């Protein structure tokens, strides 16, 4: 399913995060190799999303260094899909940007249980379906490193089980997962990263 993820790596080395003159965290170090996962927990506003955006390269660390090897995919609360397009086509755009074909889109839709509504325009999706569509975009991209910001939000029990299975399959193929979540995701053996208020 995925390109060989044998050399994927994500490491934070003494990273500090400064947001609006406020120090959210500092001296954060961890390293993730193929098949590894880390789960970020902590109260709101302590820097969980900022950490993910740093890992994605969207925010520069105030101090320290971030090492990435392998392709990166980010799924946050915004699915980044064109609202007017049918779901399958909207996912097809991102799959194309990621160098993937229609089979990857179909695999992504199946993995989140949305295969039956590929023809429905994105704007008609319910909250939970839109969240799953964002995850489908991430899965279809077949990137090595998955960054998940509250991936369980708005998902029903069946979808949560599917997500856990998909994440396990991704790790089994040498992928890396860095997730921030308030709810259990089935990442029991993940390296914990705890933030405090």
């Amino acid at each position, binding site marked *: 399913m995925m390109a060989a993820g044998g050399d994927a790596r994500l490491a934070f080395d003494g990273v500090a995060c400064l947001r609006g003159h406020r120090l959210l965290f500092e001296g954060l170090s961890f390293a993730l190799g193929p098949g590894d996962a880390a789960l970020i927990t902590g109260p709101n506003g302590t820097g969980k999303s900022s950490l993910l955006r740093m890992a994605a390269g969207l925010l520069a660390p105030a101090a320290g260094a971030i090492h990435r090897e392998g392709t990166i995919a980010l799924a946050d609360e915004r699915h*980044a899909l064109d609202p*007017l397009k049918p779901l399958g086509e909207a996912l097809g755009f991102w799959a194309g940007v990621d160098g993937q074909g229609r089979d990857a889109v179909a695999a992504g839709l199946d993995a989140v249980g949305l295969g039956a509504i590929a023809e429905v325009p994105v704007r008609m999706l319910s909250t939970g379906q839109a969240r799953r569509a964002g995850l489908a975009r991430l899965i279809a991209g077949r990137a090595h490193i998955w960054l998940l910001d509250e991936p369980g939000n708005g998902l029903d029990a069946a979808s949560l089980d599917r997500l856990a299975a998909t994440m396990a399959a991704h790790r089994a193929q040498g992928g890396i997962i860095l997730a921030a979540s308030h709810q259990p995701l089935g990442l029991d053996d993940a390296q914990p990263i705890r933030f405090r208020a």
Partner: protein
Amino acid sequence: MNPLARILARDLARAFRGGGATLPLLFFLLVATLFPFAIGPDATLLAATGGGALWMAALLAALLPVDRLLAPDQDAGVLDQFATRGISEEAVATAKLIAHWLSFGPPLMIAALPASALLKLDGATLVRLELGLAIGTPGLAALALMTSALTLGLRSAGALAGLVMLPLAVPILIFGAGALSAEDNGGLKLLAAASLLLVALTPFAAGAALRAARE
């Protein structure tokens, strides 16, 4: 197809399907229709002032789509997704600039045909107007994109966009309208220089603004 071609194709499809391309066009034609009502039906007066009025209309039409060029993509997280994939902000801005001009410049040039008939412009003036629009609309499109990037994330972006953009469009307006007169030779060249400067500057200015908007 490389990512930039995909962004270009996506933006073009969005402009023509989402109605973003027709709004400036209708506005331009509406101004051409209303102008004779304000000036009166005197053909010589209309012919003398019509070309300048059409340049004014083109400038204001360029301002219309500013709030839709980047803000929806920013809100939907599309720009973040591009950045996560290592596609530079400058490259995104370039693709968006080309797509925006294609959905703005050529339709405006076509709309200038009926508009010039409404304003009793003669054939020679129409040719110079079309030439000027062909050279000047890339500059207007670039200015619109730059303004859109600079005002990204601000609360009253729409109102501010006009204040940022219109003064910067003064060279385009002066040289574009100046090139309409028969004895003028340098107008088109100066228009081309002003337009080229804006087109060359925009990917970098807009790229830097997009990066700053992410912080």
